[in-house]
């Protein structure tokens, strides 16, 4: 079963990463095929494992401020900033629809 263009487009949207070319799409197909082997294993009654340290309690420290005031250092690596703000292009604008985007999937 091939992955539908709708799902591919949805993935590009979620990941904000594009497939780039046919190879990219085929790579995903192969990855899914590979992962399907998991179905061969019986996991009845088996609980999912999040962490190998599941039997231990997480360390919780006191709610005290021990460091901070590093605004200057943190802003150092940002390309666009104004005073103490990171500057982003306008938000709440969805990615253009498939037809208008410059993406490989357009051709499919």
């Amino acid at each position: 079963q091939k992955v539908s263009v709708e799902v591919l487009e949805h993935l590009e949207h979620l990941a904000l990463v594009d497939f780039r070319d046919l190879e990219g799409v085929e790579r995903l197909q192969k990855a899914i095929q590979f992962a399907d082997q998991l179905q061969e294993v019986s996991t009845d009654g088996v609980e999912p494992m999040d962490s190998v340290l599941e039997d231990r309690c997480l360390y919780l420290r006191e709610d005290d401020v021990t460091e901070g005031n590093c605004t200057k250092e943190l802003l150092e690596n940002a390309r666009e900033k104004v005073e103490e703000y990171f500057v982003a292009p306008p938000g709440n604008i969805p990615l253009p629809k498939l037809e208008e985007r410059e993406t490989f999937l357009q051709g499919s």
Partner: protein
Amino acid sequence: AALNDGLRSQVSAALKEGRVTPTELCQRCLALIKSTKFLNAYITVVEESALKQAEESEERYKRGQPLGILDGIPIAVKDNFNTAGIETTCASNMLKGYISPYNATVVQKLLDQGAVLLGKTNLDEFAMGSGSTDGVFGPVRNPWSYSKQYKEKSVPKSHSEDEESNWVITGGSSGGSAAAVSSFTCFAALGSDTGGSTRNPAAHCGVVGLKPTYGLISRHGLIPLVNSMDVPGILTRCVDDAAVLLGSLAGHDPKDSTTIQDDFKPFELPNLTDVSKLSIGIPKEYHAPGLSSEILALWSKAADLFKNAGAKVVEVSLPHTRYSIVCYHVLCTAEVASNMARFDGLEYGHRSGMKDSTESMYAATRREGFNDVVRGRILSGNYFLLKQNYEKYFVKAQKVRRLIANDFVKVFRSGVDILLTPTTLSDAAPYTEFIQEDNRTRSAQDDILTQAANMAGLPAINVPTALSERGLPVGLQFIGRSFQEKQLLTVAKWFEKQVQFPMIQLEEVKRHDSDVFQHQKSASFS
């Protein structure tokens, strides 16, 4: 002191007695880095700051107050660890020019003990790969490609074509670190290990590669790939040195809540002489398809070595081994999809010139910043995490992970102390051959022997064992119980002493360090 000396046994003593100074050591390593530049092991070399650190160390030795064994020792760090004031790239366009504002905890610990940081080593982009061939700064070359041992065994096609096209890979993804240690440009290096990324290149480069138990060493500052499996890795030329590094790095870090809170006591390794109380397990599923007959024979020989020395050697079964790669594939891509989401161009790293909208800027930045391998894993991961696929793939994989981890629990509960397995399927492949298959296929093939230890969070170590028919290193892997590094390293050290792995014979090193080849010593100095 020679560049190939063991830390604890020789170099430390030499530094204390003033037979060699930290500045001399540093200068020698820096010079060697320059003359082995063709290996492409380093992305960044911080000559000035290294010499300054060496100077400070020298002052301390003069006052008779060295900070410890690591004071003045040149080390290298894989370029996916944050290093304050030094560029950290993860071999990706996404982080080119990114200057870390802080030190990873493990880096800080090394610096606090006076270690001299020489530079950042090359890797596969974002540590995704098993060849150290897929970074933006190009592939790393295995120093053994230029060794006398390899050249003697290779059939020369034509004199000039020979060296340029014949070179072999280091394995990966911590190839730069492995090559740096193997070529004597540093005494120890940090790598990372998520699926075998420290042990695999260690095997191919003939060095010791330790993957500690998950939770023992802090990941704070290690740019994450798979949060539930990543660990910092240690690469050294002998097992004793690995124990020294482990001693200085292990322990709870409040900045990494996945580090255990138990007290960690650094240890010196005993010189084991009696292995009769030891039980070694040989997991039959590790006789994987594609395992070279050479390595199979070596593995068998090693098992016999233990048997003849009086240890109990038993065949055991880890039935879910063959699913570990598939399981890893799903869990890894899923966590990667999440971890890579932070790279959006806003706060750090590459930023695209696209200004239409936030989303389009993010998309363009990620399009420009990540290579195919990274993008492929992000997309696969997102697929497995889709609502309609979550149970079938992600949760399923988590269940299989428990089965894999339980396999190990059962075996260790049955009285086995340590498992002995091969580390890689074969010796290092020539670069031209390696790149014929894509990254995912290669990783799936190469990780098969190392991956399960990451699934179960167990400590594992590669010990260089012998040279292959082609004159290249082959290593064997020991896997131990959780947090039983002392036992694991003790056995590894005993084995290292038995096999007497030969020292690499490199022209460049010869020129720099005339007393290196005075004695045909092995890499282990215990």
